């Protein structure tokens, strides 16, 4: 058993979550989602959690959160509704019914998407030829660029621009966002662009910095890849 204890299978991201378990239980018990026998469902839900622990599956915190809300609902069901309260007391189970409805809608939407003819699953087009092979050829001599190399490259461009402008932070926050969408549009059209080309037409130090910050943010968000050619030293930005 020590072997299995050491190896925890991650359920997150690919496998089902707590909502799926709840749907599974509702279906299995053949009950109406608007009239869930909460005590039975809670008991079975916890049973599944135990099994998952035994199987050494990495049960995420989300399962615990759901278990807690189910138990909370169960406890509220036990308290009789106060008679003297004028406001109509809502069925505590509504707390779970609404998310359940939303979740079923999402599953339906996912099914609809999956039901379409998907590119590279059901439908194919000619593989991108020249550009891709060039890219593939290039890839051998391309290497990713680190943050400090980017800063160096930026400083070479920024050199010579007057340094008197101080950057206004509030203005900059807005502009970085705009710059990102601007750059995304350019990359949508051109697929790739050199680092230097990014700064063409920007004459103020402030705009240079904004552009640079936009590039860094886009790297962080995985919107672009920045590669440097081993021989020429040219840094190139690739979209997507």
């Amino acid at each position: 058993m020590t072997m299995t204890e050491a190896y925890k299978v991650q359920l997150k991201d690919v496998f089902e979550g707590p909502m799926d378990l709840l749907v599974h239980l509702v279906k299995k018990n053949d009950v109406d989602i608007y009239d869930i026998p909460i005590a039975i469902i809670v008991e079975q839900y916890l049973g599944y959690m135990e099994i998952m622990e035994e199987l050494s599956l990495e049960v995420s915190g989300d399962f615990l959160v759901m278990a807690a809300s189910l138990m909370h609902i169960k406890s509220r069901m036990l308290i009789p509704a106060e008679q003297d309260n004028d406001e109509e007391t809502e069925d505590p189970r509504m707390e779970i019914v609404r998310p359940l409805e939303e979740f079923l809608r999402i599953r339906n939407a996912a099914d609809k998407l999956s039901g379409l003819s998907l590119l590279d699953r059901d439908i194919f087009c000619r593989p991108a030829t020249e550009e891709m092979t060039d890219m593939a050829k290039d890839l051998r001599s391309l290497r990713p660029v680190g943050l400090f190399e980017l800063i160096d490259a930026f400083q070479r461009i920024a050199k010579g621009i007057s340094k008197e402008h101080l950057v206004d932070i509030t203005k900059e926050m807005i502009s970085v966002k705009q710059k990102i969408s601007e750059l995304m549009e350019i990359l949508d059209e051109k697929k790739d662009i050199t680092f230097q080309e990014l700064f063409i037409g920007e004459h103020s130090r402030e705009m240079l910095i904004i552009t640079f910050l936009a590039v860094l943010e886009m790297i962080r968000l995985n919107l672009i890849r920045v590669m440097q050619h081993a021989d020429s030293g040219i840094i190139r930005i690739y979209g997507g």
Partner: protein
Amino acid sequence: MADNLKAIIESLLFVTDGALSIKRLKSVLGDDITVQEIKEAVRGLMVDYEAEKRGFILHEVAGGYQFRTRPEYKEWIVKLKQLSPARLSRAALETLAVIAYKQPVLRTDVEHLRGVDSSGIFRTLLEKDLIRVLGRKDLPGRPILYGTTRRFLEVFGLRELGCLPSLDEMEQLEISWPSGSKSS
């Protein structure tokens, strides 16, 4: 030129990677040809390919046109290319569905609806270029708003977002739950 306009456009479509837009065709074909003529020629091509029962047909996707194989021949293509068909996990598909139908959305919106942390899936979808950052919401922390990409339209064969399949009503969902084996 108008006589062989269809053939010219066909050749342009043939050499283009990705979808070719009417606008792009117009810029190549020049001022002598009107947008209307181009549209008619493209329509004509679509009809021709359809009528001749070719292995590939002209699809309208993501604001452009592209030759794509017919879905019924997929098994042969998969065999030829020896590829395992591109698959999105159930979780990724659900996340993508929320983003597609509700965009612009925050990651927290998606996580709230799905009831699970979705940061890893967002990263995957960004890497696959199916979603993108649309901007930031005017809330504390300025959280990022997400939407789908042009690539998303291409992959799902959609002309535009308005062409997303319509969803079922709640009542229908209850009767036929997705991937349900049990009928209620």
